[in-house]
Each structure stands twice: as C-alpha cells, then as structure tokens.
C-alpha cells in the first residue's frame, strides 16, 4: 500500500528542512572570511517570510504518515510561538556572537535544527515520532549550550544538560516501551482508546511516571529541574532564552497533548499528582530564586516557578486550564525575551551578569532599564502587563477544578516572587550606578526591545483576541478530551 500524504500538512517542516539544507550549501560555498554575516541575514529573512506564510495556514487540519503526524489548531498555535521566538533568538545570536567569527554560521544552522525539532514536537501524534522530535531539539541544544568552547561554565552547562537530558530521553523510551507492552501501540489514538476502556494499572502508571519525568525535564518541573540553574547561567544567553521560552513551550505542548488528550480519560488519577507537583515546583523555584546573585540563575529559578504556575492549568485539566497555559506561554514569550534581550545588551557592554552590576542601570540606559522593569513586573504578574492575565486564567482554572488550596499557594508565591523581582527593579531604579558610562543600544536591538515592550503591554491590556487564539487552539485539538 502506498499511503497518500497531504504534503501541505507538513509544509512548514519541509520548508524548514529545505532552508536548513540550502543554508548548509550556502555556508560551504561562501568564502571563509566573507565580510558579511550572510547566513544570519538570510535566516532572518527566511524566518520572517515563514511567519507570514504560517499566518495564511491557519486552517490546516489533518493527519499524515499513517496518523503519526498531526496538524491541528494546537500545533498551529505552538508553531507560531516557536517561529516568533526564533526571530528574537536569531537576532540575539547575531548580537551575542559578534566576536565569534566563522563558527557563527554553524550556530545558526543549529538554531534551524532546533526549530525543526520544536515544530515536529508540536505535531507528533505518536510516541516514536515524539521521541525523535525531542531528540532533534535536545541534541541541537546540547551543542549550543556548550558553544563557548573556552568558557568553563558553558562546557559544564553543556555536560550537565547532556547527562541529564540523556537520562530523560532514556526515561521517555523506557516509558514508551512499557506503554507499548500494555497497549501494543505507540499511536496516540490507539493508546487513548485503550485508556478509555481500561483502568490505570501499575504498569501503565509506571510508564506514565517515566514519560512525565522526561516531559518534566523539558518543562523544568520539580524534581526534574536540577539542571536549570547551571545550564541557564552557563549557556550562551541566546540559548538560555531559547531554553526558557521555546524549549519550555515544547515541554508544555507535549504535556497538553498527553494529559489533555492521550491520557485524558485517566484525568482523575493524575490530576492531584500534578497539582502537588505544581505547588512544589512554584514554591521551590520562587524560594531559591530569592537568593540568587546572578540574573541568569535568578531567571532560571523563576522559570521553574513559572513552570509551577503552568502546571496548575494542567492539574485543572479543563478547557480553561489548557487555554490558560497557552495564553500564559504567549505572555511569557514577550516577557522573557524582553528580559533576555536586556541581559544580552548589558552583558556585551559590561561583561557581567551579576545583579549587583545592574545598579543604577536607569542612569546608563533608560530604555534597557524600562524594558527590564516591564519584564520583571510582568513576570510577577502585575497588571496591566502580559503576565497578569495568564496568572489570572490559571488561578481561575485551578479554582474551577476544585483546587482552591493550590490557588492560595500560588497567591502566596506571587508575593514571594514579587519580592525578588522588585529587588532587581530597585537595583536598577534606586541604587546609584557603580560606573556611569552610557550603555549603547544598537538600532536593531532598540527595535526588538520596542516590539517586546509593545507585546507585553498589548497582550496585557487587550487580552480578548489573544485568549480567543489560545482557546481556539485547544478547541480544535486532535484527540481532545475536553
């Protein structure tokens, strides 16, 4: 039998692969010391055109490759998130690696590979494809994390990420094999049908725990968060940004696909466990973040705390919970990218990521200071910024599903997190600067900072259209149990 494949369903992945391969060719053909950063410029142009292309593809829907690959509204939404994230990450990389010379173009290729991996993750409807997709993403991240060859921290981060990542991959495969043993399939629809007719038994429970461990690694949930601080700190900052926005979103689309779809029929069995994990994750992340002196480490722990808030939506297991997760990730995208843009510009000028060095930033660059302030306040979940409405919907989802205690813990956490975010804001706005040199911000960075600022404010005030997008993503989800 020769399967008929609707190629338009995988058009994005095909385009990305073509771009990737042709960029490799261009890279080889270009003279060694080409004056211009052609790969970077081409990548940027391609990405922007891909976003435009993707906007026209909103109605794509269907299965390909014998039901292994799914294109639905959820996949569309997340691929859009990934594409937008990548635009920023490419721009950050161009800025960050100005001094890196020829190895820069290879970095761009790795970024494209990671994008391919993320897009495949969003569309997997089969555990094997999902595994391959995760590996494509993670392996390119291993290399990128350790990209600063002469920096001890970067090597250490890459090593740590590799070892724990490999372990997580092992867990995933191990869990999948148990699941195959129970259900005789790796297809999502077959497994979901199995879940509908069978109760959870020790074997499937074991499989689920193993698979959750692997997702938890990606989504930075406790107790699989050990790598986060060191890797966030050591990795080149564009990679940290990608990890905290793109890779985390990839973790959460798997979570949505599995826990709102495939394992949906067993909702009552795992919901409480997720709620407890959510509470532990947000509390631990916030408590440890309070004591950090390095801004990337602090954002690492804060990113763990945000995974905790996001898990509230998963524990709720409702329509509102899933759309809350989507909306939150959207707001988180602009917010976190804004913070990392500031960190990159600052670290290039000042060669430091220490929070103490941010003292008096407002006197050195009011744009950087203001962007950082907005990002921090939005992370803390204060209106009228993007972070507020995400927390609002997730809290509502938790209470709606009967987890009022979880909502109260989250409320306490919001206060804790506000403390350390405001401490940084205080350093930037109140403390006297140690040096008075003005930090130059290049025009392209100014533009990106402005886009993130506008994004944070627009998403925060005109929540309606974005919530609609987040909700329709969930409504059209393949195998949805909502």
């Amino acid at each position, binding site marked *: 039998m020769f399967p008929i494949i609707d190629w338009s369903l995988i058009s994005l992945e095909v385009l990305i692969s073509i771009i990737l391969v042709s960029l490799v060719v261009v890279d080889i053909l270009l003279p060694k010391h080409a004056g211009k950063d052609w790969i970077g410029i081409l990548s940027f142009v391609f990405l922007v055109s891909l976003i435009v292309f993707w906007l026209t593809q909103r109605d794509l829907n269907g299965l390909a490759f014998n039901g292994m690959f799914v294109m639905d509204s959820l996949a569309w939404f997340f691929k859009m998130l990934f594409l937008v994230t990548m635009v920023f990450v490419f721009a950050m990389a161009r800025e960050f690696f100005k001094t890196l010379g020829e190895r820069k173009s290879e970095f761009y290729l790795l970024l494209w590979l990671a994008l391919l991996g993320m897009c495949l993750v969003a569309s997997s409807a089969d555990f094997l494809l999902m595994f391959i997709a995760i590996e494509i993403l993670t392996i390119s991240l291993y290399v990128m994390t350790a990209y600063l060859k002469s920096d001890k921290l970067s090597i250490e981060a890459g090593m740590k990420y590799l070892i724990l990542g490999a372990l997580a991959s092992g867990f995933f495969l191990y869990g999948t094999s148990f699941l195959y043993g129970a259900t005789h399939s790796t297809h999502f629809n077959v497994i979901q049908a199995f879940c509908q007719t069978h109760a959870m038994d020790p074997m499937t429970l074991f499989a689920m725990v193993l698979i959750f461990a692997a997702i938890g690694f990606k989504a930075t949930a406790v107790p699989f968060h050990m790598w986060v601080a060191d890797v966030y700190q050591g990795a080149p900052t564009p990679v940290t940004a990608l990890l905290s926005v793109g890779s985390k979103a990839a973790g959460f689309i798997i979570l949505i696909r599995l826990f709102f779809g495939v394992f949906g029929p067993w909702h009552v069995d795992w919901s409480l466990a997720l709620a407890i994990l959510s509470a532990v994750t947000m509390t631990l992340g916030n408590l440890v973040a309070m004591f950090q002196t390095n801004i990337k480490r602090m954002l690492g722990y804060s990113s763990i705390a945000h995974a905790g808030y996001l898990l509230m939506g998963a524990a709720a297991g409702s329509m509102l919970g899933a759309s809350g997760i989507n909306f939150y990730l959207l707001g988180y995208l602009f917010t976190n990218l804004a913070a990392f843009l500031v960190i990159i510009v600052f670290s290039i000028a000042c060669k430091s990521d220490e929070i103490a060095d941010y003292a008096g930033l*407002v006197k050195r660059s009011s744009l950087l200071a203001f962007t950082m302030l907005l990002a921090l*306040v939005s992370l803390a979940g*204060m*209106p*009228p910024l993007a972070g*507020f409405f995400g927390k*609002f*919907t997730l*809290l*509502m989802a938790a*209470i*709606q599903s009967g987890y*009022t205690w979880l*909502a*109260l813990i989250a*409320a*306490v956490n*919001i*206060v804790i997190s*506000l*403390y350390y975010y*405001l*401490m940084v*804001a*205080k350093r930037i*706005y*109140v403390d006297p600067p140690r040096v008075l040199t003005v930090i130059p911000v290049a025009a392209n960075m100014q533009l990106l900072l402005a886009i993130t600022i506008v994004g944070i404010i627009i998403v925060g005030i005109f*929540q*309606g259209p974005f*919530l*609609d997008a987040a*909700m329709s993503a969930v409504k059209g989800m393949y195998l949805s149990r909502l």
Partner: protein
Amino acid sequence: MMSPNLSWIILLPLLGLGFVCLVPSDKPSLIRRISTVSVFLPFILSLWVYAAYDHVAGGFQFVQNIPWVVPLGISYHLGVDGINSLLLLLLGAASFSAVLISASIKERIKEYHLLLLTTVIGTYGAFLSLDIFFFYFFHEVAAVPVFLMIAIWGSERREFAAMKLTLFLTAGAALALVGLLALYLAAGLGTFDLVQLQAQLAEHPLPMEVQNWIFPLIVVGFGITLTLWPFYTWAPVGYAEAPTAISMLHAGVLKKMGAYAIIRFAIQLMPQAAHHWMPFIAVLAVVNIVYCGLVALTQRDLKYILGYSSCSHMGYILLGLACFNVIGLNGVVYLMFAHGIMAALAFALTGFVCDQTKTRNLDELGGLLKCMPFIGTCFMMAALASAGVPGFGNFVAEILVLLGSWDQYRWLTVLAVLGLVITAIYLMKAVRLGFQGPLDTRFAHLTDTPTLVEKFPYVLLLALLILVGCLPSVILMHIDSSTKTIVESIR
C-alpha cells in the same frame, strides 16, 4: 444637559502620561505643567459627574459597557452611584493637591510624574469600574508605581518601607483575587459584571458554606489595604518614609479602595456571610481604633503619629461596615471622604514642615507656629478635624458611625468613643510639641509658603473639609441614595 463621559476621567490622565513621556527630561517646568493639567481635568470632570448625578433616581448612572474578554464575561463597564461619585471627587481633590505640592521634588522629575500619573489613573479606574476584573486590574496598576516612588523619593528607610508596603498589599490583593475568582465561579453566571452579579445573588444567594469561606478571603484581603488589625504594620512605616504626594494619596484615597471593595464585593454580594462574620470584624475594628491610637500616643515622630492615626481611624470605617444600617453605612462613606481629605491635608502639611526643618522628630521641633503661621494653623485645624471636633467633616462621619453601631455593639461603641479621646490627646500633643512653645533658633529663618499658588492645595482641602462639616447634606443626599438600596438588599 449633556451627560459626562466617564472614560475621559481615565483617558485624560493617560493622555497626559503620554505627553509627559514625549517631553525631554531637562524641561521640568513643562512636565509639571502637563502633569498638573492632566490631574486637574479629571478633577473638573469628577465635579461635573458629582453635580450631574441624579440622586433622586439613584442607581448607576453614566454607564458605559464594552465587552472586553467575551469568553470569561469580562467587560469594560463604568458607572457611578452615590458612593463612587463621591470617591472620585475625593481622588480628584487629593491628586490635584498632591501634584501641586510635588513642586518640592527636585530630582528625576519626569519619572516622578509618570509614576504619579500611573497611580492616579489606576485609582480612578478602580473607582469607576463596575466589573470585578477591571476593578482588580486597575487596583493593581497602582502597586508597582507606589513601590518605586517610595523607594526612589522616600526618606531614610525608604527601601524597607517600600518593600514592606508593596508585599503586604500584594498579599492582600492576591488573597482577595482568589476569593473573587471563587465568587465568580460559585455564582455560575460566567460574568464579572457587578450589576448582573448583584441582581443574580440578591435573588439566589450562594449557599452559606460557600459564602462562609469566600467572604473572609475577600474581607481580609482588602482589609489589609484598609489596615485591618493586625495587618496594619505596613502603613505607619510606609506613610512615614514615602514622598509626601504618595502619603497623601495612599492614606487619603488608595487605602479606601479596600473599604470600597468590601462594600461592593463582600457585603453586598454575600450578605448572609456578612451577617455571620462582620461582628468579629467589629471587634477587630475597635482593636484597630484603641490599639493603634495608643501606639500613636507613644510616638515622637510626626509622620508615624499620622500613620498610626490613619490606621486607628480605619477602625471606624470597619465598625460602620459591621452595622448593616443606613446610618452606619452613610457614616462609612462619609468618613471615607472626610478622612481622605483630612489625611491628605495632614500629610501635605507634615511633608512641608519636614522638608523645611529636615526632621520629623517632635522633640527637635517646636514653636513652628511663629515662623509658619499659615501652615501651623492649617495643621491645627486638620488635627481638630481628625479629633472629631464639630464643624469638620470627620465629626459628622464619626457621629453617624457611632449612632449606627450603638444598637448592636453597645460596649464596642463605648470603646470606640474612647478612641476619639485618644486621638485628641496625641494630636494635641503633636500640635503642642511641634507648633507651640519656644522656637528653636535653627528654625528661626524658616518661612511660610510664600505665594498664594502654593497655599492653594492646603486651602482647597481645608475648604472641602469645612464645607462637608458644615453642610453635610451636600454629600449625604448622594450617599443616602445608594446606601439605602444596599442596606435594603442586605437586610
């Protein structure tokens, strides 16, 4: 007659904010002028709203309703009744004088006015919103600007004070948010619209066991904003260290958002639970009055005295809320207004004195009436007002509250009257130590506010205080039209 458009009250200062953004920071006088205009215009609009409000018809008027987030039932719904039209007026007067007295700020003027305007916009929005989501949204907009303003322009312990105040208030707000969300979900209407919720819950009240745990969350959450004992500790230190304009706005207006929210969301939407819980709150209220009053007695720092005094007087508001009769609730709203004006005036005067003398310690001050007769006189009048001397608004308000509570809480009322005596003692002490007696030679060269323009904010606030003290009916008619319907619905 043309009816006022409430959105402009929010949009005009927002526009002003935009203009201030565009002005380069080396033009301080232009910034100040824009800022003054952008709080003056909404003040005029609030006066218009107040005058145009038809208290015979009652209910919410000048309503604007735009659906905002349809799936969750959030709408941009503005409207005023007798209660919030008065609070708008309070905010208008307080913010206008706060910007006028901010001429003494010499550093980072642009940022100062940007943050101050944001605070004012947030507070206007909260008072105007008839949608629970937007109330909360606007209410929280003010939080971070206040933090930054205290931390940047405050006095010695500013960083500690800013952090303490912000964390306490955020904790309260977050608690209240959980309560409000639970209320929204329990009502099952799928709307945050206050008017619809009121109508629905009046017909079909929530089950008692649900009300009984949501109610304390909201009351304690917003109670923290209202310095409910024992959660008041952020206020004295916060007000003492904050720049004058923020002390004025916060003690005068922002903390009243807590009382406003308790009336609108807790008592009115969950009357059964209110009857169950408010007697306990009444006890705490009297602890507020007496305990904070006694603490104020021991203070030697002028701003701390005012801070504790402000916490103490919130007790009357809480006591009035526990009465469930028209007279008591009238007293609450009256006191929100009168105390707001009085607190703004007292903090403005204290701020002026401290700026001139560089000290807040009563042991170092003395005899200031000799060199600053105008400021000194105003301060004495503010102190008399606060102590409940007839002729000022506070007297009317406190009498109303005490009359309201007499039938239900006889002993508590007696203790509350004691609070008035305590207030009189510590404020007269402050007047005696600060403004009377021999003048220290260090302060001999100090002078009063030189120009009429600079006197204006104090005169404005004092005039309002005396006006509502002598002609209570000016605002009682408005208040009465709304409190009556509320009390009928919660009986």
